[in-house]
């Protein structure tokens, strides 16, 4: 199972990648903004799951979701947003954009697992 982790913070990417490895996901690809993530998805044959931050330079997580949902080859890819944005209207905005689930930072590895399973029931 290939997972794409998108976050402009190297610290967060390391934490998320370590959490995923611990959950048994070994094929993890990283990108530090939405634009690079979309390029990776377009040229690298997509991903089985996208975990993305919201606030990033170049292209935000929300814009990435919109781009993914607007692309025929990628539009069915499950997306889990991991962000500090926790206002109700923000969560609603993300859901409207097409996010499958939403995780607020800081999070525990258990919650990450729970959210991944909510998006892909037999993932781990």
């Amino acid at each position, binding site marked *: 199972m290939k997972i794409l982790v998108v976050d402009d*913070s*190297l*610290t*967060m990417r*390391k*934490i998320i990648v*370590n959490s995923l490895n611990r959950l048994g996901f070994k094929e993890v690809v990283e990108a530090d903004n939405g634009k690079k993530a979309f390029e990776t998805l377009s040229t690298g044959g997509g991903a089985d799951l996208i975990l993305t931050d919201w606030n990033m330079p170049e292209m935000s997580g929300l814009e990435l979701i919109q781009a993914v949902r607007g692309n025929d080859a990628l539009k069915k890819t499950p997306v889990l947003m991991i962000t500090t944005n926790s206002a109700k209207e923000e969560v609603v905005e993300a859901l409207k954009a097409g996010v499958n689930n939403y995780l607020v930072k*800081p999070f525990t590895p258990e919650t990450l697992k729970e959210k991944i399973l909510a998006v892909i029931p037999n993932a781990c």
Partner: protein
Amino acid sequence: MDQNEIDRIAQGIVDTSTTESKPAALSVTERAEPEAKTEMIDQLDKVTQVAEQETNKVLLRMESILGNLGSQAELLEQVKEKMGRKGNAEIFCSQLDQCLQLGQQSQDLIFDAMSLLQFQDIIRQKLEKLATKLEDLLEFIDTTVGRDASGSKKKRAHSLTIERAGLVPDGNKNAVDAILAEHLAGGK
């Protein structure tokens, strides 16, 4: 603030006090505020950058420790397997199990500590938001009062202080040693 800057401000007070077109205090503010603006935002940016760099250094070391513990566990499993085959090493196998258990507990603790480092990203984003709000506020003040802060000289005194504040091990050692040497030579 260097002497030229002080002189310029002092000159500004003299100029405005003679023409009486503006209060002297406003003229001082006009000169000082753009620098204060860029300095504040600059400092916030620098704090977030330095904090992220240092957090990543901690993470790298934690990853190394996790790797070592993983390798250690593999070796212990191999030893345990070899001893077990001989059939007379139950007591050693029990101790090896304890070692493996302790190693696993250490890995769990390190992993928990890594997760706790998320605070850095959260604080970074809060500071970035604060910097943006601050910038907006100062732009509003500039617009309202009719000032333009663009192109002002940036002051980095505090940022440089942060960089010098012992973030690199032994980073100041040579400088301190040189001062000590000079002091000792002078005392002779």
